[in-house]
């Protein structure tokens, strides 16, 4: 990897990071104020993502003052090495010259150094503030299992997993470890569906629509390229909320509702964003959530014999990863339905799913 091509800031010895940060602020005068509400660590094994990650941190810092730790790791490197850089992201605070600044410490860790995050990286946290770690790599068995005891919020994107079922198992192991009692799992793939789930829940609050829930016999989901797992998670959420059980039979997968109704599932990749269509078929009615490419809204509708037609425009949220992360950090809290939703559709995940 050639990290030197990316602008990381001022190179510093790892043992002098705190002192150098202190000096940075001393030299910056009275107009800049350091602020922090969280520690945000981003772990990546891709040198190519570093510039984008730095940009992302700058965007996040504008709304969530933080101590950012960007880690570029190469555990497979033959030689052990650890390097660090510091910089700051500053934003105007109201009128006048005052600026609020977030610190970023960038680490490049090779070989064994990449396995020693608690020692090398997490000793530079802003103590007493939550540590959110966005793990942008595959979860592996780690040399230091105590790593996860440091983490309050583990962020990942199951959309990027090559083997979702196996990776989900790893995540569950992490959540089940001793200190896991406080770790919050945050799958960005789940978080990006937040507005979609809100839209659906809101629509089904309608007295006519809610009556149809129990007799849905078919679900069709259309998703954009690379968003199959997102569509599956949405299906998992719906199924888990309604108590549907997955039934694999003769190569034909379907769900069975609490009342014994078979629910067929169709998944189709189309042009468009994350989830562009979600249609529920009932004997006498169809409920549809459609989102045009580039739109931030769902057009939701209910049509059926003898039923009043309902049409609503519902916010679908933004799809950029920065927006998803910002929304997740603003929202906070746990995701009590996530694991259940994942479990329901877990058999539908294949190692090639993306």
């Amino acid at each position, binding site marked *: 990897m050639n990290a030197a091509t990316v602008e990381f800031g001022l190179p510093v010895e790892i*043992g002098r990071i705190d002192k150098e940060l202190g000096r940075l602020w001393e030299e910056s005068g009275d107009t800049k104020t350091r602020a922090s509400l969280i520690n945000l660590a981003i772990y990546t094994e891709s040198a190519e993502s570093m510039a984008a990650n730095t940009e992302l941190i700058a965007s996040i810092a504008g709304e969530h003052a933080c101590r950012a730790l960007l880690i570029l790791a190469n555990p497979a490197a033959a030689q052990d090495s650890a390097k660090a850089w510091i910089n700051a992201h500053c934003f105007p605070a109201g009128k006048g010259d005052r600026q609020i600044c977030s610190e970023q410490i960038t680490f490049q860790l090779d070989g064994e*150094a990449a396995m020693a995050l608690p*020692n090398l990286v997490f000793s530079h946290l802003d*103590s*007493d503030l*939550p540590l959110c770690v966005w793990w942008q790599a595959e979860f592996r068995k780690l040399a230091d299992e*105590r790593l996860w005891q*440091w983490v309050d919020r583990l962020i990942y994107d199951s959309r990027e997993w090559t083997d979702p079922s196996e990776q989900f198992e790893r995540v569950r192991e992490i959540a089940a470890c001793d200190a896991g009692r406080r770790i919050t799992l945050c799958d960005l793939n789940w978080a990006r569906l937040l507005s979609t789930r809100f839209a659906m829940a809101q629509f089904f609050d309608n007295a006519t629509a809610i009556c149809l829930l129990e007799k849905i016999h078919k679900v069709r989901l259309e998703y954009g390229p690379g968003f199959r797992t997102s569509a599956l998670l949405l299906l998992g959420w719906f199924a888990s909320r309604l108590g549907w059980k997955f039934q694999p039979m003769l190569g034909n997968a379907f769900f069975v509702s609490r009342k014994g109704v078979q629910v067929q599932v169709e998944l189709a990749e189309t042009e468009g964003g994350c989830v562009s269509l979600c249609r529920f078929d009932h004997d006498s009615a169809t409920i549809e959530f459609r989102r045009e490419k580039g739109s931030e809204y769902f057009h939701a509708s209910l049509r059926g014999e003898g039923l009043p037609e309902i049409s609503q425009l519902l916010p679908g949220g933004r799809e950029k990863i920065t927006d998803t992360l910002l929304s997740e950090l603003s929202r906070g*809290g746990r995701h009590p339905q996530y694991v259940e939703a994942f479990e329901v559709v877990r058999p539908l995940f294949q190692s090639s799913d993306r």
Partner: protein
Amino acid sequence: MPEPCSIVIFGATGDLTHRKLVPALYNLAANGSLPASVSVVGFARRDKTDEIFRRELEEAAQKFSRQKLNPELWEHFASSIFYHRSEFDKAEGYDALAKRLDELDAQRGTRGNRLFYLSVAPDQFPIILEHLRKSGLNQARKGSWTRVIVEKPFGIDLPTAVELNSLVDEAFRESDTYRIDHYLGKETAQNIMVLRFANSLFETMWNAKHIDHVQITASEPLGVEGRAGYYDKSGAIRDMVQNHLLQLLCLTAMEPPSDLSADAIRDEKVKVLKSLRPIEGADVRKYVVRAQYSAGAVNGKRVPAYRDEQNVPPESATETYVALQVNIDNWRWAGVPFFVRVGKRLPKAATEIAIHFKSVPPVLFRNSGDVLDDNVLVIRIQPDEGISLRMCAKKPGSSLRIEPVKMDFHYGTSFGKATPEAYERLLLDAMSGDATLFARRDEVEEAWKFIDAIRADWDKGDEGLAFYSAGSWGPTEADDLIQRHGATWRRL
């Protein structure tokens, strides 16, 4: 401003003089806190002139002084520095010193006031003290004063501490004896009393009713750094816990003194030490974890195991890390454990006291799904001296989400000037005759009594010595120790 005096430093060619004492005196001079006529006399065995000694100290001060050297001021300050060559065990050296000090009194107006600083290995203490006594240098003349500053370690156990104290006692009155513990000279250590007793907010909650536990940590990334000879005999518990950490514990746990006089404060600290529940026998394994670092990497650099360090015996069982649960059996602290940990070759340098308050009853927020973080008040002793308070706050938005936030006070930025080094304050206090920040004889002996009980169990064998990789946060056994209380060590 203290009275003019002559400061005689025994062991003047040593590290402490170069790194701490002379830079501290220079900074006092730079701040106008040092009487202009003070003389500094270095007493050591090596042969050198005043000029050479001054030049060496100038180089050291340039490197270690917190304020940049002003050539004009240094020249003036250096003219007050003198070198006195002598063996520590030669009576004539002390007679010559007495004569030289008299001459300096006459030349510089130091009024016969003497401050002797023993910056030497502990085995030299008896010899120097005996010669000070025999030469009469320990005796103050009418209208003058004579004091002695003793550097740690004050013995290696209770019997040796008693012996050393008796030796000091033969030469100097207790009120003229200043046992230095540089942790007490740090601004934040001094601020503990102000924080507790000058703010009604905290002291009313400073007890078992509101506090769940206290964590006192001193971590450092350094290894033995050429001190293996001393350290291997001492270990972390003698080197750090017996003195610095128990002093911090005392300041945190003591009752309000009746006034701010040295003895009133030290009386309260002694009461805390006397209230410590002894850890002996089988309890040692239960309440104390001792460990030694194995090879690893600190800040990305590979470092050897303790046993592979130069001058460390390959079978050494000396602990480089200690974690212990200290229980204070008094009304204020019954049921509140104090978790103390100290270690070498840990990832970062940090010393702090963290007061963990009890959890709130969950009735109001149990449905939010958030785990509420307890309030924590942190007193950072070093580096970045300051105080922070963690509390819970509602995240903006329509739903009830709770996140911890932190109020942080930094000495450096809040008061707009660099905090003085501990030695500046301590030297100034010793010159002024204020012993508040120095350990009294009974404090030292009570602390040893507590430590000796633990050591007695360790001395039975090496069993129970755990290992941790250099550069890690210590052994898993230490995590287990604190987890038994339902807590975890703080992320520093």
